[in-house]
């Protein structure tokens, strides 16, 4: 069983933005591995629709930083072929919402190629881009794809909540031999955090304990981890103390750490920015029930988006998403405080 220790802050005083951390991860890996290239819409001349790849065309040239036509299924499939042929493509989806047209390539080909070739043809490729709502982009452009895609065996899913993990997880993703879906958030790209200049990686399948407390286990991944931390701060003022677990990867999922925390707290609230039905939060709770049912002192609770298409109007979108208030309320409910 995993022993839980609080994740120490990065040993640096260097602060950079989330998008810079992503860029650093890609650039560092590209400097040391000539097989890596970045392909996607607007990634080269325009420096990225969200400026993640700013300056990379200048450094690496058009052979390795490649503007693709608006053809997600096309460049996803092309990347798969290149990966099978020994290159290490990073495929940027401007938004994971646009990956839906590439579903056959990324789910039916990338994730299954190894299996269908009897373990022979691996597909080391990273698909990355913005995931989740919150930018008033309307329902079609606001997908949280984690639950939709995590159902499929053969792929890995990383979802960082902060710049340090963004860099470390993306480096691990690029080096991984399997297809990795890397979910970023447009809402977090400007967030700053401590990120060492040098080399480090963050392993897959190891949750980070962001905050310690004995009363309730808060489990989340990606952007809502930050809402959990805000909620935990507020709850601490009322003497309610939470373990906040940042899963960092959804596949693999570090259930051991969740179980270890529940053995201490006896309570769990899972915060998931996607829809409630058959979501990652549901999966976490199912595994918790299988693994440590007897340790639970209250039924598990989910905080998710509402079960409707993402609203376009700002106040409605904010009300629809998980936020601090909803998390505080949920934790109070499971610890029995009104």
């Amino acid at each position, binding site marked *: 069983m995993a022993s839980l220790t609080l994740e120490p802050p990065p040993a640096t005083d260097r602060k950079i933005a989330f998008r810079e951390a992503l860029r650093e991860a890609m650039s560092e890996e590209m400097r040391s591995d000539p097989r890596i*290239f970045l392909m996607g819409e607007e990634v080269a001349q325009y420096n990225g629709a969200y400026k993640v790849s700013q300056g990379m065309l200048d450094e690496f040239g058009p*052979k390795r930083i490649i503007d693709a*036509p608006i*053809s997600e*299924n*096309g*460049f*996803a*499939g*092309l*990347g*798969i*072929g*290149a*990966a*099978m*042929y*020994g*290159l290490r493509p990073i495929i940027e989806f401007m938004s994971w919402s646009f990956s839906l047209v590439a579903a*056959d*390539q990324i789910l*039916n*080909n990338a994730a299954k*190629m*190894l*299996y*269908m*070739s*009897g*373990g*022979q*043809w*691996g597909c*080391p490729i990273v698909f990355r881009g913005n995931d989740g709502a919150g930018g008033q982009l309307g329902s079609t452009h606001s997908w949280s794809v984690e639950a939709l895609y995590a159902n499929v*065996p*053969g792929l*890995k899913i990383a979802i960082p909540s902060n710049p340090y993990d963004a860099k470390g997880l993306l480096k691990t993703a690029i080096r*991984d*031999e*399997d297809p990795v879906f890397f979910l970023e958030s447009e809402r977090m790209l400007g967030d700053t955090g401590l990120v060492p200049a040098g080399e480090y990686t963050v*392993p*897959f*399948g*190891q949750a980070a304990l962001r905050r310690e407390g004995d009363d309730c286990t808060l489990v989340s991944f990606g952007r809502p981890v930050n809402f959990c931390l805000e909620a935990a701060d507020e709850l601490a003022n009322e003497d309610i103390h939470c373990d906040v677990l940042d899963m960092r990867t959804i*596949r*693999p*999922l*570090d*259930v*051991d750490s969740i179980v270890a925390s529940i053995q201490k707290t006896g309570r769990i609230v899972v915060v998931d920015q996607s829809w409630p039905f058959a979501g990652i939060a549901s999966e976490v709770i199912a595994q918790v029930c299988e693994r440590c049912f007897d340790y639970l002192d209250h039924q598990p609770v989910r905080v998710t988006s509402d079960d409707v298409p993402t609203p376009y109007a700002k106040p409605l979108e904010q009300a629809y998403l998980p936020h601090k208030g909803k998390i505080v309320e949920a934790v109070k409910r499971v610890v029995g405080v009104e």
Partner: protein
Amino acid sequence: MKKTIYEARIDHIQILDEHGKLDEKLAKDTLSDEDAVFLYEQMSICRWLDEIAFKLQRSGRMGTYPQNKGQEAGPAGAGLALSRFGEKNWLVPCYRENIALFLNGLPMEKILLHWMGDERGNQIPEGVNILPIAIPIGTHPLHAVGIAYAKKYRGEKGVAVSFFGDGATSEGDVHEAMNFASAWKVPAIFFCQNNFWAISVPRALQSGSETIVQKGLAYGHHCVQIDGNDIFASYKVMKEAIDRAIKTGQPTFIEAVTYRLGDHTTADDARRYRDEKEVEAWRKKDPLIRTRKYLESKKLWNDRKQADIEARAKEIVDAVVKRAEGIEKPVFEDIFDYTFATLEGNAELQTQRATRRTTGLGQGPEQEKLRA
């Protein structure tokens, strides 16, 4: 003001007609006498493999199988050219070009093993430049373009060729692949076998386009249509396409006009939707018949040789069936090994694998024995 901004011309090439008559001028620098004999023999062996595969399926020894019958000549000529010109060419197949795969080094039993329902049929031997068979329609030309892209990236000389049918040209993937190939000038070649039927949907209902090949014009491909039952034509256009791809970076779209003499697969009965007269007309254009007529007219073939090749085909295919059926049974644990290349940090799957090996998926120790 009015002016013409685009004009196009597409050639149809036939070198060996259905009566076995050769266009000597066009045949120049294509197949030698030995090549023609060799390809006839190979097509005969593949035809026999088809017959046996059909019987294996009917007798419950194999899953679904798509017969190649009637379509051997296109992949035969193209496959031979691919094995000769360029460097380290890659074949990205679907499922009706067996002969091209065999000519490029794929052991025959791999095809049977695949259709018997074994993932190991898609384990390609080292040094054989062929991707696993793609059963979904039209997904793989993108992979071929990806390989072509990677070849250019790595400074290699060969080409990547995808084989697909007329039905696949209705898929968006194929058009995206065609678009990328020319936009980025990668050494990709598209070999479309137009057999007139997408399972039960006839060519006329699939597209309003007068020909399939003209779809390549929109993407800036060099476009050529051939008699797909002609080994000389398919050899010639593939040879030229390889040369063009390497020298100019222009992709070639080849439409091989042929006909599926058999059913779509063993799960299909084409008599339910195809006119017997249409099939009968195409039987007369069978690539084996015309190639044999040609070889006989050149005194390169006779009844004795025919009896020999038929006996040899039986021997070869018998041995192939034995090898495919004789492979050790797959091991249950393999399904977990095949899912991820690396499990570092993946406690979840490591645990899953460890437990499932003994207790997972309802597999108790007593069932374990059944797999021995």
